């Protein structure tokens, strides 16, 4: 068997490129400020300093963490439910009314979210929701729908029609078919959508930037950004903030990796 030298070389080089910045963040977050100024930047400090993490936690980090968790939950739960029900309807109904509905959601994949920030800002102000966490959930749900519906619909199309017909014979309603038959079968797709959208929500920067104002309403990415301004001279503290803000999502990745990866590729590969 001949070896794939070109792919292999790039593969390992890329691994290095991926890990080097992460390694740098990790070791720097564990350096005291004097070690940071006095030691080689790419070597870990022999004495681990946890003071940076304490400093971050004392700087209202828990508020931002809680905000991020609330926004992620408030976005993902309604999003998955709505996307599942809409997917069920668009896949199961052969009525021509649903053809434009399908196209509309597909079109949604091509809308640059960025371009809608002015009207969304206006909408949120008029709804008297500016500077609230709910303001971050609403557009997050709406723009998460197209991809979620695409992924869930793909999974639903693979469910054999005979299963539905068998339930028809038993006299089941659409509601029962949706929850008892379709829901358990497409659960992996639902988990995929949930994990992926949680990631999107967790790392969202633009909506928090334009829809909130007070420090109490900051989510982690925005908090990191302002943190960087305040602690510009204390890089180890900023790196500790980067580490702490990423831990929850890395944990999610460890638990839901299979779903995230398979879903991402299924959603875009089909």
């Amino acid at each position: 068997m001949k070896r794939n030298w070109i792919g292999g070389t790039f593969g390992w080089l890329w691994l290095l490129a991926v890990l080097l910045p992460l390694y740098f963040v990790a070791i720097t977050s564990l350096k005291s400020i004097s070690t940071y100024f006095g030691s080689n930047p790419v070597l870990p400090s022999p004495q681990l300093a946890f003071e940076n993490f304490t400093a971050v936690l004392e700087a209202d980090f828990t508020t931002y963490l809680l905000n991020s968790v609330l926004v992620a939950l408030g976005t993902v739960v309604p999003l998955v439910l709505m996307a599942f029900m809409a997917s069920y309807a668009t896949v199961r109904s052969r009525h021509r009314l649903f053809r434009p509905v399908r196209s509309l959601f597909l079109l949604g994949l091509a809308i640059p979210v960025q371009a809608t920030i002015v009207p969304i800002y206006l909408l949120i102000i008029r709804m008297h929701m500016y500077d609230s966490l709910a303001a971050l959930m609403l557009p997050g749900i709406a723009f998460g729908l197209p991809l979620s519906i695409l992924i869930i619909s793909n999974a639903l199309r693979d469910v054999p029609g005979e299963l539905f017909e068998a339930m028809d014979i038993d006299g089941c309603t659409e509601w029962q078919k949706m929850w008892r038959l379709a829901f358990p079968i497409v659960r992996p797709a639902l988990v995929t959508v949930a994990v992926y959208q949680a990631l999107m929500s967790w790392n969202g920067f633009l909506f928090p930037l334009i829809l909130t104002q007070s420090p109490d309403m900051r989510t982690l990415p925005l908090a990191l950004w302002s943190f960087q301004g305040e602690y510009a001279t204390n890089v180890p503290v900023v790196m500790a903030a980067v580490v702490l803000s990423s831990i929850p999502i890395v944990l999610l990745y460890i638990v839901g990796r299979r779903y995230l990866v398979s879903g991402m590729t299924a959603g875009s590969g089909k």
Partner: protein
Amino acid sequence: MTTTPAAPHRERLQLSHLLFAAPALLFFLIFAILPLLGVVALSFTSWNGIGAIEFTGLTSWTEALSRETTWRGLLLVLLMIVATWVLQTPLSILLGTFLAGQQRYRGVLAVLYFLPLLLSSSAIAITFKSLMDPNFGLASGLGLPFLKQNWLGDSTLVWIVLLVIIAWQFIPFHTLIYQGAVRQIPQSMYEAAQIDGAGRVRQFFSITLPQLKYTLITSSTLMVVGALTYFDIIFVLTQGGPGVSTRILPLDMYLTGFRGNEMGVASALAVILVVLGLGLALGVQRLGGKDASASQTEGA
């Protein structure tokens, strides 16, 4: 009408289906489609973000189209799209093909490759900012003096920096797409090629690459539309600077609207972005044409 006697129950509209679709549809109409239409409407108004919204006809459009920053922003975003594609696509295909191998260590590599996708753009921007520090970053850490540059202060270097960081952030995603696609190519095609005496490189160009055509279109569409709206990293890292050298159109739109309080002009710029986004997406799909759906059915 369209009622065929073969399957009449298929054609009937069920109330339950309508009700199931209603919440998502309503949400999508209010918070995605309405803003999309709203941005067109707002582009014919003047609004400072706080006071009354006044209909002013083409004033905002005239302003948007006469500003030099608009045209530069447009040019820069096109540069961003082309450079991103040229940099990321070959690497993603190469890495995706490599990762598609069945060896166990490649699975581990895939897990690690994914890590940048987990980080927020602001975390990534902040990380690279400290890596680029001339005294306490990579340059002095690795003893490589050529890395000691004023990375964010030079209008050429800053572009290299942005392209590299954005590649670091997004290549993993496209790599995964390609990895999945390569794994779907039937092994029998490679076996047949091996019997015919085709080497690795030959197999890559005559089997792998043609089979990836549909994936290439999907990945390119996502990449191109994504590049059109890159915002976070540039915002955190350069705010458009030095000077206006990285003030790409989406950033220009944000700064015009939310810093310059010219929401009407910002809306006109947003309309340009939407049209550009749809045009590019359709254009990439068109490039793929009918062959795309053909290779899709073959692959499945």
